[in-house]
Each structure stands twice: as structure tokens, then as C-alpha cells.
């Protein structure tokens, strides 16, 4: 039993230690270093046998409005897009559960299919749609709804729309799973007792689906808060999010310690949501 235990555990354990635990500890370590023009571009943590930790990166993050704005932008846009995903996700998931049983697998496959096509291509598709000379503006101008093109790219609207679109399938699946597990008799009973269908949905169906809705919200919020590609392509200078700041510090400014400190801050921000999500998911797997 012990030999078998070791045999099964050795590779996953070793892998996780090398590629997850050590790298995360390295981020923590280097966030206390200072940038320097050398290879590697940061100062060692121990110099001449003494601890040379510096809090300069963290104090910089607290002082500079730029970083605080990146934090608030990340929370704001990820929060708004999560809300959109949940509302649209609930509507679609409910419509799927109301469809005839035989259709449901097909509908779900159709919903997941876009998730399999490249993320980058899906975001790219929206640039072609949203830009001033893009298809939406061309159509609205042709219809005479607007006189001048709407500015949709390089705005918060573009970022929220892009994130909602990209992460929507992730939100629909857990919500569908929790709605499909409910007996339709519960809603019927509420309607028999005088509730309108919409009231029955809000008072019976939604509260019962709360774990699924919470899981869906966390599942999309966490990656969105650290998103880089979408705000970079659809947002502008006013919508900079944490992932972009980290990217710029790392690649443009080559300030690895500051980028590491940003990664630590982002991890801390997402720690509670991530642990809640894991508890929900692990609970489901062990049930």
C-alpha cells in the first residue's frame, strides 16, 4: 500500500513542487528584491550573508496612483463583466432547461463549441465589429440610427463586452448544471400558489441554484481580474488593468521585482475567491 501510494503520488507531487510551489515562492522572493541592470535583472536576497530584503516595490505600489487605478479598474471591469455573464448565463441556461430533453445535449454542445475555438480569434473578431470603421458602425450609419461612428474600441465598454463574450460559456455550464438538477414541480407549485412565472423563477429557482451561480461567478471573475489579452486589444490607456501593468513592468520596463510584487498583490486579491471556488468544486467532486 505504501509503495503504491508513493508510486501514484511521486510524479504529481514532484511536478507540483517544481512547476507550481517553487515558482510561486520565487515570485514572493523576488518581490522583495530591487531591480538592477544585470543578468538576472534583480538583486540577490542574501548579500554577504545578510538578508537584503527591500519593501521598495510594495511602497511604490501603494504610493503611485497608476497602480491603485489598475487595481480598481481590474475589480470594476471584471465585476461588471461577471454580472453580465451571470444575467445572460441565467437566461440562456434557463431556456436550455425548458427545451425538450432530446435537444438539451445539442444546445449545450453548441454553447461550448465557441470555447474550443481560439480565444485570441474571438477577441479579434470583436475588433473588426467594434472599431469606428467596423461593421456595427457601418450598419448603424447605413440605417441612419447614428450620424457619426460610435467609439466602442479602446473603452471600458469594449473591455466588458469582450470579457463577457469570451467567458460566457464558462458561466452557462455550472448554472445549467444546478438548474437541471431541480425538480420542475417546485416552480409549478409556486405558480399554483399564485406566483407569476418570473416571480417563481426569482423566488424559487434562483435561490436553489445559488451554489451553481456562485461557482459560475467565481469561475469567470478570477481569470477576468488578471486578464491581459482582452483589455490590451479592446481597451485603451484609461482602462489599464492589473495584468497589463504587470506585463508592462516586466517586458517594457524590465522591472522584474516590481512585476513580481504586482503578481503577489493580484494573488492576494484573488486568494479568497479562488479558495471559495475550490471548496465548491472539490465538494462537488467528493460528493
Amino acid at each position: 500500500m505504501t509503495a503504491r501510494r508513493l508510486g501514484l503520488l511521486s510524479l504529481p507531487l514532484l511536478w507540483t513542487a517544481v512547476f507550481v510551489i517553487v515558482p510561486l515562492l520565487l515570485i514572493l522572493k523576488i518581490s522583495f528584491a530591487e531591480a538592477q541592470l544585470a543578468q538576472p535583472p534583480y538583486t540577490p536576497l542574501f548579500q554577504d550573508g545578510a538578508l537584503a530584503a527591500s519593501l521598495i516595490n510594495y511602497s511604490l505600489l501603494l504610493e503611485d496612483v497608476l497602480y491603485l487605478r489598475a487595481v480598481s479598474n481590474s475589480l470594476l471591469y471584471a465585476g461588471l463583466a461577471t454580472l453580465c455573464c451571470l444575467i445572460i448565463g441565467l437566461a440562456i441556461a434557463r431556456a436550455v432547461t425548458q427545451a425538450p430533453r432530446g435537444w438539451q445535449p445539442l444546445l449545450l454542445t453548441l454553447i461550448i463549441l465557441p470555447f474550443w475555438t481560439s480565444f485570441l480569434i474571438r477577441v479579434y473578431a470583436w475588433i473588426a465589429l467594434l472599431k469606428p470603421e467596423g461593421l456595427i458602425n457601418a450598419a448603424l450609419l447605413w440605417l441612419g440610427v447614428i450620424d457619426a461612428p460610435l467609439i466602442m474600441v479602446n473603452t471600458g465598454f469594449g473591455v466588458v463586452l469582450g470579457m463577457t463574450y469570451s467567458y460566457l460559456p464558462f458561466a452557462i455550464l455550472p448554472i445549467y448544471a444546478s438548474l437541471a438538477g431541480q425538480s420542475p414541480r417546485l416552480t409549478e407549485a409556486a405558480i399554483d400558489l399564485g406566483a407569476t412565472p418570473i416571480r417563481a423563477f426569482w423566488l424559487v429557482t434562483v435561490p436553489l441554484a445559488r451554489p451553481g451561480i456562485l461557482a459560475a461567478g467565481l469561475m469567470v471573475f478570477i481569470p477576468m481580474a488578471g486578464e491581459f489579452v482582452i483589455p490590451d486589444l479592446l481597451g485603451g490607456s484609461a482602462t489599464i488593468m492589473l495584468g497589463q501593468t504587470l506585463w508592462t513592468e516586466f517586458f517594457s520596463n524590465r522591472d522584474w521585482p516590481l512585476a513580481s510584487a504586482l503578481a503577489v498583490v493580484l494573488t492576494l486579491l484573488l486568494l479568497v475567491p479562488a479558495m471559495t471556488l475550490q471548496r465548491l468544486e472539490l465538494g462537488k467532486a467528493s460528493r
Partner: protein
Amino acid sequence: MKLSRVNIATLAFGLAFLYLPILLVVVFSFNASKLVTVWGGFSLHWYRVLFSSSAYLEAALHSLQIGAAAATLATLVGTLGALAFTRLGRFPGRQVLAGLMLAPMVLPEVILGVATLLLFVSLDIERGLLTVMFTHATLGAAFVLVIVQAKLVGLDPDLEAAARDLGAGPVRAFLLVTVPALLPALVAGWLLAFTLSLDDVVLASFVNGPGATTLPVRVYSAVRLGVSPEINAISTLLIALVSVFVIAASLLYKRTIVSRN
């Protein structure tokens, strides 16, 4: 149950929202005009441009190599992890290990990207195709773990015990009973890990080196410069490739279920 009008409208709008943008990319990849909003007639011009560009072809080859290797490694690590978590009962540190193994799935990509890059730099490992492959395998393993574990939980452990009773050794019983039952999950996990690798921009940007550019990284730098018909063409090819994969996988999955029943 019949669908009400509201539900039909919701589904129609939902599916249109999900599919129209992709469809437009495909349609405009056959556009003769260089303008993205004006239809200038059907043409395969942009595909010709694409296939004469060695940079794209080389990047595509890199992506396929990395994807296949990373998916295979991820399936191995993730499956072993899933077996450990479902078969070994409780052992000290189980929750923590599970949390850390799933962390790459939950953490934003920028964090995993910086973290693994710092690992390779501090070990003085030169960045290239291999470093991208290992990083992608780490991400894929978390997803494989979830998929295989879900399948293992639903699997009756008595089946393997019965095989043992009938004289099979532990390895034989595992290979002849458990592995075939897990096969759909293994295939699904491999495909998911492969697609994740084929799709990744962020991790690859951090850990790749000169001469190890992957297709998404190449496409990304082109997209940053603006919309172009060339990117529409390459997107269409990728969509076609993935569709073939997904349809094949779902047919395979269905067949294994049907043959079992």
C-alpha cells in the same frame, strides 16, 4: 415540454451572440478587398499570402509540436494525480496538494507566466520550445485532473477488485478494466490540454525564447497592429482544424458510450 416564444428568442439571441462574430471572421477571410467592412467578391488571395509566409508556417509547426507533447505529459501527470486523490483515501496534505495542483487553472495566466519564467531563469535554463512545453503541461495537468477525477469518482472500484479475484495482477486489472473505462475522459483531457496549449498567448510570451515563437504569439503581434484579411484567413483555418477535432472527439465519446450500453 415545448419551448415558449421567450425561450426560443433567448436561445436564438444567445447563439447569435456566440457565433456571429466568428462567422464574420470566416466570411471576410474570403474577401477579395483589403478593407474589412467592404465585400469585394470571393477570393482565396489571403490564403495564398498565408501559405507563402514561412514565419506563420514555422510558428504553426512549433505550436503543434508543443501542443502534442504538453498534452501527453499533462494527461500523464493529471491522471496520476486523479488516481492518487480518488484511490488513496485520506493522506496528510491531500487538500493542500489538490489546491496547488489546481492552482494553474485558477490563477490568472500572467502570474503562472511570471512564476515559471523566474523558475527557468533562476535554474539558468535557456528558454525555448521545451520551456513553453513544460509550462503548458503544468496548465493542462490541472484540467486533466478535474476531468479524469470526475470520471473516476463515478467508477465502481469493485470492477477492478472483481478482475483481481478472477486472477488478474494489479497492473493487468488496472490496464484491462480501469483504463478502458477512463478512455473517454483521457481523450477529452488530452484534447483539452492540446487546445489550451494551441490557444495560449500569455504563458508562451513569458517563457519562449528566440526562435521558439508559437502561432498565437505570432498572430497576437499581428492583431496588435490592426485587423487584416490575413489574420481572418489564419483564424478560419484554426477554426476548421478545431471543429474537426471536436467533432471527432464527440463522435468517439458517443461510440464508447453506445458500445458500453
